[in-house]
């Protein structure tokens, strides 16, 4: 069993050791009633959060509405933000909850657990070959075609760079579920690409 180490910050190869996380000081200022701090946080995360919300709902207007709800909720919750979770994980988690609230309010269909395709566990073909053949656009399209929950975990992990701990926090599931969901997503992606290649 491989243990998941503590997270060391975002980005591949970027050293953050010893540095104070700027996000934390921003949230601390927000808790003190500094509205400008919220603006700073929004400046840092508006694109990632909006992109994530568009993944959850294709309706742009609704996504903007949820983004606004998220901002207000983040402002309200800044005082109760607990230092143990990462700011980024907290933001994505709030956005996710707001999205679910909004979707429930509007009685729109949302991503169902049951929509997850059960993936066969048999040995996949050599991945490198499948991926080398796939154009980037094709891969992007394949990600877009994944089941909602798989697409969500995949994009959050390798697109937004969330750690396993952050993912567990955002998605509200144990870390083991995060890992299995990720590998299922990966496998579903491969199958999709393989069947597309085979269909030519």
């Amino acid at each position, binding site marked *: 069993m491989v243990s998941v*180490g503590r997270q060391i*910050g975002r980005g591949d190869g970027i050293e953050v050791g010893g540095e104070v996380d700027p996000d934390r000081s921003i949230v601390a200022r927000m808790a003190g009633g500094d*509205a400008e701090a919220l603006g700073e946080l929004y400046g840092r995360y508006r694109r990632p959060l909006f992109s994530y919300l568009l993944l959850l709902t294709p309706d742009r207007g609704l996504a903007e*509405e949820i983004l*606004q709800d998220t901002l207000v909720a983040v402002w309200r919750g800044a005082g109760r933000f607990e230092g143990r979770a990462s700011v980024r994980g907290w933001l994505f988690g709030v956005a996710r909850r707001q999205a679910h609230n909004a979707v429930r309010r509007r009685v729109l269909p949302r991503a169902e657990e049951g929509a997850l395709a059960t993936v066969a566990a048999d040995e996949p073909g050599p991945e490198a070959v499948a991926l080398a053949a796939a154009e*980037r656009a094709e891969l992007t399209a394949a*990600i877009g075609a994944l089941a909602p929950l798989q697409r969500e975990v995949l994009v959050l992990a390798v697109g937004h760079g969330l750690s396993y701990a952050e993912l567990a926090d955002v998605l509200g599931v144990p870390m083991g579920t995060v890992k299995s969901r990720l590998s299922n997503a990966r496998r579903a992606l491969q199958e999709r690409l393989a069947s597309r290649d085979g269909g030519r």
Partner: protein
Amino acid sequence: MTMGGSGHVEEVLPAYVNGTLAPAEADGVRRHVGACASCAAALEGWRAVAVAARVLIAETPAPSAAVWAGAASRIAAEAALSGAVVAGGGSGDRLRLAWSLLVGQVPLIRRGLWAASALTMLLGSVVAIGLVGGTGSGMLLALVAPVVAAVGVAFVYGAENDPSLELALATPTLPSLVLVARLTLVFGWNLGLALAATVALAAVEGGVGLWPLVALWLGPMLFLSALTLVLSLVVGGGVARLAAMGLWAVRLVALSDPGRGLAPRVDAELVGGFWQATPLLVALAGVLLAVALVWVPRQERFVAR
């Protein structure tokens, strides 16, 4: 770190790719991938997926500016309310919160409104002081100020005036507080302009008290503005502006045509007397404002859901 089975390192590859794996573990992965072809291939796969996912994110359009503007105004409204509700809050805090609520509304009000009011009022006072002079100048100002303020108020609230309003009100908020904040800004601006014009007039004319001049326009300004506000909420800003100007035109005609009735139903003396009864006008304005404050939350409840 287990080096044997091919599945063991695969499980942490996403974290390895996004750089969130602890350094020691990342070293382990690096060593293992160097020796295990299957995991090396899986790593390449994950890297490609990461690139595609980042492209997907980078290609996302930016959210519109209304998102931030709406959130800021909602937060300011909440802050002002909690400041008013929390008994322990100092008056300084409350003032600060009220100020932030007002400032939050400024960008949401049509920009041209400020300049249009100022220009009209300036023109009115220049004509009054320069061309008319004497007692007529005060009257001219009294005719310009109320209608300028009333037309401005018709721009205060409503989806037609503020595209982000709908978004701001999409979740439970305090529409009446937003209304009061905007009204304070727009009406306050016009009130300030009218006062400045009156002070200038009093200074130029000399011998005229400030209050008699103010009394000429204050009552009509309050009443006409309040009426326009209610009309703009109920039937829309365009109709409200027309109604304000129409009502005002009746007064002008009554003024220019004293003695005779305009039409069988319009008594010039009655019209003139009404517009000069400041206490009555102020009271009526108060009633209309109360109607507006009751109307807004109800209306928004219908619109929002």
